[in-house]
C-alpha cells in the first residue's frame, strides 16, 4: 500500500526544484559540476528486472533505501514489486513513511533515547520493525513504545558472519527473543541476518559458498527458536550481491537489498544484470602534461574503498586512466599526451560506491536521454535528524 507523499516530501521536492530547477530541459553536460545524475530509464529497468525475478523467488522484496535516500526512488521501488522498505536509520524511516510507505524495517540497533522515541512515535502511523541484539535495548524500545502508545515489531539480529551487530549463537538469540516476548508493546516477529560479509567477496563462487553457509546458520537459529516455542514468521536477509541465491532459500521470507536500484561500479562487478543508473557529471579543471584534474573529490564521492576493497571512481570513455590521488575537492588521474581530455571538458563519471556520494548531495538531476527532466531531493541528508524528531513530536 502506498499513500500520497506528505508535505515534508512535496515541500522538499519544491525546494530543490526551486534551487536547481533552472537545469530542467538542459543537457546534463550543461549542469554546474559536479552534479549527481540519475537516469530514470535505467533505474526503472533495474526495478522492473528485479520485479520480474520475484515471480520465481520465494521471498518478498523489502527495498532498502540507504543507497539512494530518495523518496521518489522509494516510491518507484514500491510500484515495482517491493511490499515495504528497509532503512539504516530512524530518520530515513520517518522520511519514507512521509513518502507514503506503510511498512518499514529499520535494520539497525537504535539504542539512543532520541532514536527510540522517534521509532515509537512513527509506529503510531505505520508498521515499524527494528533490529535488536540486546535485552536492555529491547527494554528501552518497549518503554518508548509504551509511552507513545504504539507497538514496535522486533527482529532479533543474528550475526551471520559479517561481525557487526547481532547475537552470536542460537542460545543468545533465544534469550533475547524471550526477553522481547515478555516486554509490553513489542511484537516478536522473527530474525534479521544480513550476510554483508559476502558482498566483500568479489569471487563469484567463494561469495556463493559464504552465502550458503551464512543462510544455513541463519535458518538453524530460526529452527532452534521455533523448537523452543518462539515462532519466527519473518526471516529477513540479503543484499544486491546475494539476492537471487538468498531469495531462492525457501525459509527466507524477505529480501532487504537496495543497491539494485541506483547501482554503482562496486555492485556492478558482482551483479551486472543491474545497470548503473546513478553517475556524476564533472569538469576537467586542470590539464598538466602527465595528469588531468577533475572538480570532484572525496567530499563529492566519499570514500574510494568499501571495507578494504578499492571502489575507484572512473571517467567514462577513459576508464583506463590510473588514479593518481583523490583529494577533498579533486580527483587526479595519470594521463599522457595520448589522452584527449582538456580544461573545460565535461564528462560522465562512474561512482565507485553510490551511497557515499549520495550522502553529500542535496538532490539528483533526473535525466532521460541525457536531458534533465526533474530534480529529486535527497532525504534525509547527513547523520543529524534535521528537525525530523521535533516535527514528529509536534505531530507533523
Amino acid at each position, binding site marked *: 500500500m502506498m499513500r500520497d507523499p506528505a508535505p515534508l516530501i512535496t515541500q522538499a521536492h519544491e525546494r530543490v526544484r526551486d534551487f536547481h530547477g533552472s537545469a530542467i530541459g538542459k543537457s546534463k553536460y550543461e549542469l554546474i559540476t559536479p552534479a549527481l545524475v540519475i537516469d530514470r530509464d535505467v533505474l526503472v529497468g533495474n526495478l522492473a528486472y528485479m520485479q520480474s525475478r520475484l515471480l520465481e523467488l520465494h521471498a518478498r522484496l523489502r527495498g532498502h533505501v540507504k543507497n539512494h535516500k530518495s523518496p521518489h526512488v522509494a516510491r518507484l521501488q514500491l510500484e515495482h514489486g517491493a511490499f515495504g522498505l528497509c532503512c539504516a536509520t530512524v530518520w530515513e524511516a520517518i522520511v519514507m513513511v512521509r513518502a507514503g510507505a506503510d511498512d518499514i524495517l529499520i535494520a539497525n540497533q537504535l539504542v*539512543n533515547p532520541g532514536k527510540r522515541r522517534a521509532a515509537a512515535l512513527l509506529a503510531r502511523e505505520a508498521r515499524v520493525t527494528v533490529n535488536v541484539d540486546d535485552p536492555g535495548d529491547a527494554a528501552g524500545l518497549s518503554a518508548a513504545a509504551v509511552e507513545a502508545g504504539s507497538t514496535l515489531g522486533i527482529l532479533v539480529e543474528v550475526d551471520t558472519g559479517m561481525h557487526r551487530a547481532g547475537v552470536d549463537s542460537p542460545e543468545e538469540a533465544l534469550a533475547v527473543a524471550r526477553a522481547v516476548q515478555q516486554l509490553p508493546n513489542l511484537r516478536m516477529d522473527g530474525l534479521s541476518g544480513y550476510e554483508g560479509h559476502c558482498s566483500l567477496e568479489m569471487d563469484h563462487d567463494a561469495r556463493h559458498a559464504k552465502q550458503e553457509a551464512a543462510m544455513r546458520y541463519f535458518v538453524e537459529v530460526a529452527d532452534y527458536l521455533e523448537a523452543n516455542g518462539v515462532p519466527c514468521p519473518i526471516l529477513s536477509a540479503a543484499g544486491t550481491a546475494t539476492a537471487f541465491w538468498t531469495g531462492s532459500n525457501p525459509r527466507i521470507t524477505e529480501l532487504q537489498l537496495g543497491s539494485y536500484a541506483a547501482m554503482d561500479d562496486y555492485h556492478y562487478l558482482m551483479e551486472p544484470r543491474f545497470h548503473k543508473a546513478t553517475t556524476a557529471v564533472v569538469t576537467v579543471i586542470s590539464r598538466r602534461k602527465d595528469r588531468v584534474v577533475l572538480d570532484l573529490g572525496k567530499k563529492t564521492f566519499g570514500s574510494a574503498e568499501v571495507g578494504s576493497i578499492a571502489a575507484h571512481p572512473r571517467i567514462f570513455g577513459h576508464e583506463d586512466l590510473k588514479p593518481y590521488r583523490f583529494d577533498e575537492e579533486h580527483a587526479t588521474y595519470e594521463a599522457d599526451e595520448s589522452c584527449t581530455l582538456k580544461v573545460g571538458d565535461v564528462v560522465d563519471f562512474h561512482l565507485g560506491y553510490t551511497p*557515499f556520494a549520495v550522502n553529500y548531495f542535496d538532490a539528483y538531476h533526473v535525466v532521460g536521454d541525457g536531458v534533465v527532466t526533474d530534480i529529486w531531493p535527497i532525504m534525509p541528508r547527513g547523520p543529524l535528524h534535521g528537525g525530523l524528531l521535533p516535527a514528529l513530536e509536534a505531530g507533523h
Partner: protein
Amino acid sequence: MGLRDPERLITDVHERVRAQYAPALGRASDELTTPALLLDLPILRANLELMADGLRDVPTALRAHVKVHKSPHIARLQIERGATGVGCATVWEAIVMARAGIEDVFVINEVVGDERTRALALLAREVDVKTAVDDTVQVDGLSRAAVAASSTIGILIDVDEGMHRCGVASADEALPLARHIAKSPGLRFLGLTGYEGHCSLEFDRDKRYAMAGDAMAKLTGIAATLAANGLPCQIVSAAGTGTWEVTSRYPGVTEIQPGSYATMDGHHRKLDPRFGWAVTVLASVISRRPDRIVTDAGSKTVGASHGVLKGWDLDVYRFDEEHSIFVVDDRTSLATGERVEILCNYTPFAISYFEAYHVIEDGVVTDVWPVMPRGPESRWLLDALERGE
C-alpha cells in the same frame, strides 16, 4: 579589511538549525541524540590564539582556509583573531563567507565553467575576490565573466611545488601566463599561490620542513623571475597546518593559508600537536559483543578517513556506512547505550556530512552553528547572488 555584519543568508540558516536542535541547548553533551558533531569552543579559541601568537613577530599575513570547517561562525572568529581574509576551495564557500561578512575571499582553486566564473565575477562586485589559475583557458573564462559583471577579479598563478595536482611546473610556464593575465580585462595579476600539500603527508618534522624549504625556494624563485620581467608579485601565498611555522618565516612568502589549525584532527595532530582537538563526533555504542563494540557513527558520518575513540585505546575492526566497529576484550567496560567520542582522522570529511555543529562550553551545548555550504553543488547560491540576496 574588516568584518561586516552577517547577512540574512547566514542568520536565517543559523536560526533554522537552532530551532531544529533547540532541545539540545543547555544539555550536557552526553545527553544528545547521536551521532552529533561537537565543537569545543574554548579549545577552538585557544587554537586561534596560538596561531596569532606564532605570527606576532613576522610580517606574514594569515589567510584562514575555511574548507576545513565550512562554518561562517568559525571564519568570523578567525578574522577577529587576526586573519586578514579567508581561503576557500569552492566558489560556493566564497559566497557563504562573503555573506558572513568577510571582505577578502580567495578561492584557492581553478574555477572553470560559465556558472562558476559568473558567480565569482558577481561576488567581486561586493568584496575583494581572488582565485587561482594554471591555464589560459581559465584566465579567458574569468576575464569574460568579470567584464560582463563589470568587476575585477584578483588572479594568482597556481604553482605546483611538488604536490602534483593543479599548478604550473616552472617559471617558463608561469611567465607567459602572467603576461596573459596582465593584459586580460577585468583581471588583476596579484602573484603566486603554491600549497605545499605533499609536505603534510610527511610526519617527520625535519624532513617536512626541508621539503617545505625546497618548495618555497621554487615558489619564490618563480616570483623573482616574474618580478625581473616586470611582473612583481604582490602576494606569494602558501602553507598548511603542517608547515605554517616554517613557511611563514620563509623570506618572500607574504601570506600563509592554513585551516586545520582551528578544528584539528588525527592527521594534523601528528603534524602539530600544539593545536588542540576542537571538533569530535559524539556516538553511542549500539551493540556490545564479547570481542567488539559497534557505534552508530560510520563512514557516512565521519567520512572516508575514519577515526579512533577518545579515551580508549581500541583498534578499528571496520567502518561500515552507518557503523564503526572496534576490537575489545573483557577488560573494556563499554556497554550498549554508552556515549563515546570519535576523534576523526580527517575532520573535513565529517563536517561535509553534517548540517550543524553542537557548540560545547564546559560540557554543555550553548549554541548550534550551521555548516555552510553543504555538498558539492550549490546552484541556489548563484541564483541568490544573481537576485542580489
